[in-house]
């Protein structure tokens, strides 16, 4: 009798498909005028999967022993199986404007994660995540000057690769350490068409500014730590990350001029802290609350401000018995939240609904969340924006990579 370290891996079909989907998909997320600000990095993308998103983006401390968790890797130490997850976001955004229609749809893969269960109470997590997202395109319906029709596009974001190590020294306590690498690819393109006005013969035969393009490449890294304290009816969790310094290379080109000129600079991402609590009034119900804080300051730009988020949600878990009808096994969720974004003291209110659909008997699940949000700038009150976002997370569990007993 003996052990071999790992079972021979079966084809991880779903993770492979998820990665292929990532490669093929356009990298776009929420469309918002907030993306325009060079002082920022675009909109921050939630690290939660669709389960927590359906609970008002709360659930830091809600342990379900299933799937990876990027906001709180420590709770994966309570998992029983190796798991993976991939999340897909699609949303419709619209500026509140009665004169013009500025609705956009967007699609994003915010994260893909793998969490390996080892023979010890130790989990290794590997994550891809989009941390920030720039996505906004605008061309005014009525230009300021008929000779110069300007338009603006920004795209790209900050992407993150992370590795975490989660360990449960006690059945009620789990700790995790993580290290995160940031890679940024952002672009803003400002264009102007000058040849659209036949009454100006000169400019009608002029050249357009096809793109005053600023490309930013950046990289950086930071460590993180998290902890979960679990009891039968409640649990508490906290996670935090140190700030990171992004080394950025900025390249600018305009039409007919390919500059090789580059500028180097560094920008800071702030430290963050997040706390959460979860209460289980019954064995199949959970109530979760979260609070997160990001220490943005205005040292670099007055546009930046400390950001925080508060969310609360509820989950009714479906029956776990394989003999129950399918609809009894479905989970239902709801939540709401408030967020002060880090740019321009913009407030975001949102409500969420969600469900968890079991897939087979192994524990695989498809979580779906719907989020309706409304945000606007307090500072100048020049715009407000609504969006409706659909998030889908596919979570798969397996014994892949786990130690198994050797068969005789």
């Amino acid at each position, binding site marked *: 009798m003996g052990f071999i370290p790992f079972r021979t891996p079966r084809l991880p079909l779903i993770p492979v498909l998820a990665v292929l989907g990532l490669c093929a998909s356009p990298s776009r997320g929420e469309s918002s005028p907030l993306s325009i600000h060079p002082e920022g990095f675009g909109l921050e993308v939630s690290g939660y999967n669709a389960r927590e998103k359906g609970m008002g983006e709360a659930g830091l401390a809600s342990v379900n022993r299933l799937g990876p968790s990027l906001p709180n890797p420590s709770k994966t130490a309570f998992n029983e199986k190796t798991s993976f997850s991939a999340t897909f976001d699609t949303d419709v955004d619209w500026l*509140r404007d009665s004169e013009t229609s500025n609705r956009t749809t967007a699609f994003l893969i915010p994260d893909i994660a793998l969490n390996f269960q080892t023979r010890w109470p130790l989990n290794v997590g590997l994550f891809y995540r989009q941390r920030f997202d720039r996505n906004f395109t605008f061309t005014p319906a009525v230009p300021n000057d008929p000779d*110069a029709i300007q338009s603006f596009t920004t795209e790209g974001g900050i992407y993150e690769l992370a590795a975490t190590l989660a360990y449960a020294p006690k059945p009620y306590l789990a700790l995790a350490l993580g290290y995160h690498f940031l890679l940024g690819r952002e672009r803003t393109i400002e264009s102007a068409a000058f040849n659209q006005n036949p009454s100006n013969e000169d400019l009608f035969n002029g*050249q357009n500014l096809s793109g005053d393009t600023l490309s930013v490449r950046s990289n950086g890294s930071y460590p993180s730590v998290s902890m979960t304290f679990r009891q039968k009816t409640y649990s508490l969790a906290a996670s935090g990350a140190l700030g990171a310094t992004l080394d950025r290379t900025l390249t*600018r080109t305009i039409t007919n001029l390919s500059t090789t000129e580059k500028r180097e600079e560094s920008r800071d991402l702030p430290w963050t802290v997040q706390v959460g609590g979860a209460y289980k009034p019954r064995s199949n119900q959970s109530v979760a609350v979260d609070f997160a804080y990001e220490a943005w300051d205005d040292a670099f730009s007055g546009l930046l401000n400390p950001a925080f988020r508060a969310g609360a949600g509820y989950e009714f878990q479906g029956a776990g018995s394989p003999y129950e009808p399918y609809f009894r096994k479905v989970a239902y969720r709801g939540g*709401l939240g408030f967020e002060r974004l880090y740019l321009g003291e913009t407030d975001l209110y949102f409500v969420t609904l969600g469900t968890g659909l079991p897939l087979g008997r192994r524990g695989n699940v498809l979580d779906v969340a719907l989020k309706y949000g409304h945000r606007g700038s307090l500072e100048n009150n020049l715009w407000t924006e609504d969006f409706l976002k659909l998030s889908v997370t596919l979570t798969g569990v397996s014994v892949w990579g786990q130690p198994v007993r050797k068969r005789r």
Partner: protein
Amino acid sequence: MGAKPIFSLPFSRRSAGGRVAAAAFAVAFSCCLSACISDGPNKTGGEYLSQNGILLENPLYHLSLKGVPVDSFWTTDLDGNHLGDSILLAGHSGDFSAEARFAFQLTDTSMLDSLAGDDSTTLKLSLGFPPSRFALEELKATVDDSSKTTQDSIRFQVSAWETTDTATSDAQWAQRVAEWNRRYVRNEDTLAALPEPSTVDTITLAVKDAYAHPSQARALPRLRKRLLASMRYKHLIQIRLSPIFGTPIDSGAAMLRLGGQQGDGSGLTYGPLLLFGKRDSATGAPAAARLPTLYTNSGLRGVNYSVRYTGPEANILTGKWRGLHVILDRKALLDSIDADLRRQNRTPQPHPASGDFDVAYFVPFAKLTLPLAGSALEGNFPLEIKLISSADSLLGDETNGAIKEDRVPLEKAEVLWNSFEPGNPGKIRNDVKVAYRTVDSTLRRVELAFSQDSSLNDTVFLAVGQTKQLTTTLSGYPVNSFLTLKVEAGTDSLTVRSYLTAHPGTEPGEFRDPATGETITEMEKRVKRFLYPKQTELTLRATNGIQRMLNRTRSNKTFLPDFQFQPAFSAAIDTSVDLGSGNIPAAVPYPVLSVVSPKLEGNRLKVDVELYLFPLKAR
């Protein structure tokens, strides 16, 4: 116990706490949803973008700068070699003069039999006058000089260099033919640089009704006599047709368009021919009596011509393709722009103190206007002039933007430039030398020698005090770049001024139709933008050049932003062509002589610059 519901409710109906929680959740959810749906400011995102400086409220500045001083200007002759051209120029008109060159090889010695006898007119040179399908009347008019005095005739000196295959093998003969063709037909050697001709004849060509007949044949008695001396050998005959100035009185100015490479068979009537026997014209002469020009190694017939111009050096020419280079000073232009903006109560954009690029503005449109002192357009044809924008890398002085100037002592050779392997700028491919040699007390030889690409070697002869312009290419620099040399022969040294035209690009000449948006390609709609007689200024688009000049801070430092007013290859347009379907403008197919004189104030030149500026954000 009843049946279980299909959908299980999240809150137990039997639990009081659950009911309270459900009610609280429902209320909170409704409040939040109503907050989301409440009205916002109902404003476009565009206003937000404007406030953040992304959409500009005043996106365009329109400036019209009058009398911008030109930092420097000069002209470049881009007149290519006319070897094998179908139309040749010969004669003189105004400050233009043209020599035609022909090469004949007589291999059928039986043709010489018809020269025997006492009749000195049994060898004739036949020259063709092909009628033009377009602009024939104007062509006839161009044989008149500017004084409009109708000329009856014009006299030419017919110089002939003749050699035979006496005591030579076939290979030696072929080599001699190739060498002679290269020297006498292909290269533009001056008469001073050539040996004494074997024979010199004089002919007179009728001018007034030149194009009424397909050809004119004139006797060459001295050449006939020379050929009779070697009846049993092959002959190679190089002929140069040079106009005789001044006398007699009836040989006034006239520039004839002669047939050159006019094809084979009956079409040879219009090409230069040697007629053997008693033939009055090429028409009807049997093939055995007609000797057409030979084919050179390049497959072209051995015909060529050279045009010279003795007028002011700053003039733009057609017939001889000469363009005017205009160099503007970037800093002076920026100062003018800033001053004009302040007059408009606008704040000029700041310019970077360092770096290679200045992206304060994008230039969507710009044009240059060159004031003209006058123009003489032969046939009153409108002319198509192009503006070529380029960056001239100076190869030498990259501090103050001066043109590279070198001196080569007599009997010395010096490496003045290097060319590089394409794609490998660190590896020298050629050392390019210029040697200056003595031919005699008044004549010098300039040798241009490439250490590897010997096919680019060139030799020119200059009388002491003479200036000549050469163009060549240097590998390893941007595509289409070319090196222009202006050499001045001194008694003891040669002065070489050179500049490399890099990244040349022709500014668009087409315009879009405002009604349809389509690019105008029909000639009749385009000709209104051409240069017409009596026009006092020449305006051309210069968008790309002004863009490059403003956006690159090293303009006037490591390179010169060059605006070249260059006549199109077939510059003259006939607006009155009638092919049976109405007037359809068409390019005149023969070389037309035109002189366009820029308006100089003293020795200085000013231009007008009109441009639009789109301010770009600092980013």
